[in-house]
């Protein structure tokens, strides 16, 4: 097995093994925390180290363990197999996605060995604390930036793969629910992460360039007024962070729904109930998850109008979760349930997630959220969603698909011990948190709040939780031993040990991707969607594949043998090519990035007490010149995409020259401003100016490199491919142009 492999199965396994390692590491961090909370008088650690453990536990578990396992591991391995695709749409991008993720994790965890230690401002990295934190916070931000790029690569790949590489005849409403959950999750990752990317850049500017995006004027730390330019707002970070972090909750939970759905369908020996409702709910949840983020900000004093709106949207988004959960529970009715290890984990997921979901409702309403905010109640709620919730689903998936990946069966007895041990200990750890939180115990106190009278009586629960955490760690040894022992055995698992009905189990999968095979070679009895809705398989032109027995996958006989078409050839049903779809998805994430930056600009400008008048600081003439250069560039490259091949090279050269001219002009403008003493730390306006134009200039440089790449590759890839690339490039420049015009208006003219 090659380490630098582009094979989706290898990348999936790499993601799974790495994320499981991070999961173990992140768990060990919190065992120390629980020990400290139980016996604070033992002086186990300094408060600063306690903060680091708490911050890094959250970061590792959410960003490096659960999401990469759910999406990077399960998504990469299973999505192509389940839809009959040969690989991901962009295999090299997929490989990079993994290596960037690994680099991000190493940078973040490596910060423990930096002077001052790792990040210590919580997994939410709230300013002003995070701005004054030690250098570990910088590593956190750099790691987060790498992680976001990795997630964007992965998300883009999953979306294009599902929409473009599905086997013909496998229409959207015949996709397994697992695929739907991965598709919506990928959309969330694609659109929700860019605002955090913007926030990470702004916080890096505050830490390294002395700006004050998140620091208000007159800030007092340890009794002294901090000398910063001021004018910023810590609320801006919350606004941008939670725009990601709330959809992130759905990123955590949607793949879990998908996995549990597949395991329950297999374990109950019957189709899941309410396929269409579930698909509708998951799509609706995806859309709505972008409209609820400010319910984490009720305490910022954002006013009753905004809080009213976000309370309503938060209540609305609970409806699709209930639909999906109800559908899964109702699917058990009338089934012939096999209580295998994956089934046990999947079944336990249902009540555990329900507890997590129901306890979240009071946190979505301002009146009840205010007293509960930042207490252990929130920790209990969130962990019921993610620990016995999502993690149980992921374990169900691991036990379920392990034979498919390795050809070996995990030991049932060890698996049962792992399940029961985890179920009991997790409930002992998390259930008392609701009582602690309702009593008002704050989540971030180094001594567990012992100095407060309302902590009296909770000492025993802290100790119980510490012992349960240690026991939970021991119980995981059953899983680790099981993995090691099983992997040392010979391959003995049958091809489809659970008699599952989805395509990835089919021995015909390899035939599926073999050029020249006939319709008779296609797998005969696979496809959850076909199981669920036999009506869907009728009358869709897939006549050569007979419905044999309970289920058959609806594949058209005219299935193309060319599974590796050019990325610039359009697929018939979607009407776009892989390259074009990938590009538009990239642009969508870029729109979100700049949208977040403009949103930051709007907050700072409206909240500012003094903002320079238009034209009083910046040279409008230079800005106007650059606008003209960029517009001319767009016209030229657009002409290149429409022109004759022989004129194309000339036009691309001209485009590159204009882009260089823009950058030179921008450089001259920067120099004049810096010479006049207008540095980023001068004011919030200048900070915004340098950040926005700097990020835009990076896009111009990116476009310039893309120009050179297209020109260099023109001879080797042929006219058709070059024309496809130039068409994409032209649209990119239009986008860069539009962003500049918006910036020019906001910074120079208004």
């Amino acid at each position, binding site marked *: 097995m090659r380490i630098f492999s582009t094979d989706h199965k290898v990348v999936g396994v790499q993601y799974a093994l790495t994320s499981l390692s991070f999961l173990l590491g992140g768990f060990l961090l919190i065992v120390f925390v629980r020990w400290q909370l139980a016996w604070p008088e033992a002086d186990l650690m300094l408060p600063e180290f306690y903060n680091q453990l708490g911050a890094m536990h959250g970061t590792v578990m959410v960003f490096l363990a659960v999401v990469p396992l759910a999406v990077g591991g399960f998504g990469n391995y299973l999505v192509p197999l389940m839809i009959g695709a040969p690989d991901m749409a962009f295999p090299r991008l997929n490989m990079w996605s993994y290596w960037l993720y690994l680099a991000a994790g190493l940078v973040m965890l490596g910060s423990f060995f930096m002077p001052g230690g790792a990040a210590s401002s919580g997994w939410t990295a709230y300013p002003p604390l995070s701005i004054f934190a030690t250098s570990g916070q910088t590593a956190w931000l750099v790691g987060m930036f790498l992680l976001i790029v990795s997630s964007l690569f992965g998300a883009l790949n999953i979306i294009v793969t599902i*929409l473009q590489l599905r086997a013909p005849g496998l*229409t*959207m409403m015949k996709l397994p629910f697992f695929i739907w959950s991965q598709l919506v999750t990928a*959309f969330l990752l694609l*659109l929700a992460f860019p*605002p955090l990317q913007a926030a990470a850049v702004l916080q890096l500017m505050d830490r390294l360039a002395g700006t004050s995006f998140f620091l208000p004027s007159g800030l007092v730390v340890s009794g002294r007024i901090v000398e910063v330019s001021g004018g910023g*707002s810590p*609320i*801006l970070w919350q*606004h941008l962070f939670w*725009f990601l972090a709330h959809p992130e909750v759905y990123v955590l939970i949607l793949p879990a729904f998908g996995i549990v759905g597949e395991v329950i369908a297999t374990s109950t020996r019957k189709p899941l109930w309410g396929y269409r409702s579930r698909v509708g709910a998951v799509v609706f949840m995806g*859309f709505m998850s*972008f*409209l609820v983020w*400010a319910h984490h*900000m*009720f*305490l*910022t*004093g*954002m*006013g*009753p*109008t*905004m*809080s*009213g*709106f976000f309370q*309503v949207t938060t209540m609305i988004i609970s409806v699709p979760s209930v639909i999906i959960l109800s559908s899964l529970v109702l699917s058990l009715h009338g089934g012939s349930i096999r209580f295998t290890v994956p089934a046990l984990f999947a079944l336990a997921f249902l009540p555990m997630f329900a507890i997590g979901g129901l306890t979240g409702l009071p946190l979505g309403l*301002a*009146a009840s959220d*205010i007293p509960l905010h930042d207490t252990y109640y929130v920790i209990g709620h969130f962990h019921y969603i993610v620990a016995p919730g999502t993690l149980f689903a992921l374990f169900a998936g691991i036990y379920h698909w392990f034979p498919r990946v390795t050809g070996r069966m995990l030991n049932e007895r060890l698996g049962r011990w792992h399940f029961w041990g985890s179920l009991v200990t997790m409930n002992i750890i998390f259930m008392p948190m609701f009582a602690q939180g309702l009593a008002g115990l704050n989540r971030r106190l180094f001594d567990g709040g012992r100095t407060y009278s309302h902590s009296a009586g909770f000492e025993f629960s802290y100790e119980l939780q510490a012992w349960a955490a240690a026991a939970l760690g021991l119980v995981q040894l059953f899983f680790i031993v099981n993995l090691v022992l099983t992997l040392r055995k010979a391959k003995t698992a049958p091809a489809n040990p659970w008699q599952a009905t989805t395509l990835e189990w089919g021995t015909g999968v390899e035939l599926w991707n073999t050029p020249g095979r006939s319709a008779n070679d296609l797998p005969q009895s696979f496809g959850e969607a076909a199981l669920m809705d036999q009506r869907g398989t009728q*009358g*869709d*032109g897939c*006549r050569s594949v007979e419905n044999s027995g309970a289920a058959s996958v609806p594949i*058209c006989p005219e299935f193309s043998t060319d599974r590796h078409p050019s990325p610039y050839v359009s697929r*018939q*049903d*979607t*009407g776009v090519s892989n390259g074009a779809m990938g590009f538009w998805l990239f642009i*969508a994430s870029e*729109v*979100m990035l700049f*949208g*977040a930056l*403009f*949103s*930051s600009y*709007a*907050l*700072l*400008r*409206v*909240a*500012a*007490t003094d903002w320079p008048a238009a034209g009083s600081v910046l040279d409008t003439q230079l800005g106007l010149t650059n606008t003209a250069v960029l517009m001319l560039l767009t016209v030229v490259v657009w002409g290149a995409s429409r022109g004759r091949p022989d004129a194309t090279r000339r036009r691309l050269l001209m485009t590159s020259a204009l882009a260089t001219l823009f950058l030179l002009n921008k450089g001259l403008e920067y120099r004049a401003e810096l010479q006049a003493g207008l540095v980023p730390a001068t004011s919030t306006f200048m900070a915004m100016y340098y950040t926005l134009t700097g990020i835009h200039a990076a896009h111009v440089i990116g476009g310039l490199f893309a120009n050179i790449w297209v020109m260099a590759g023109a001879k080797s890839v042929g006219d058709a491919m070059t024309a496809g690339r130039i068409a994409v490039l032209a649209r990119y420049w239009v986008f860069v142009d539009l962003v500049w015009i918006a910036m020019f208006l906001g910074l120079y003219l208004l």
Partner: protein
Amino acid sequence: MTLKNDLRGRFLIAGEKPNDLRGRLVGMVLAGIFGATGTALACPVCFQVEENATTDGVQVAVLVLMGVTTVVLGAFARFIVLFAKREGKGRVEDTP
């Protein structure tokens, strides 16, 4: 007099416009939610300061980000609709 079933189970006289209260009811609820939120909530989240520059800034920032998100999601929704139409059309053409 001809009575006609309007698919919602209501028997109306032919040509009679149904007196549909559902839309008005939804409108009233929405107006209540968005129009009278401040009064209804008695401001538990503003800490005695209903409006200041920061709350204005947050509101504008939220609206900008929500606007951008709506445009992007709208574009995706449009693609999904077009895609569904194409998929449906392809299925009809494939039917023997």
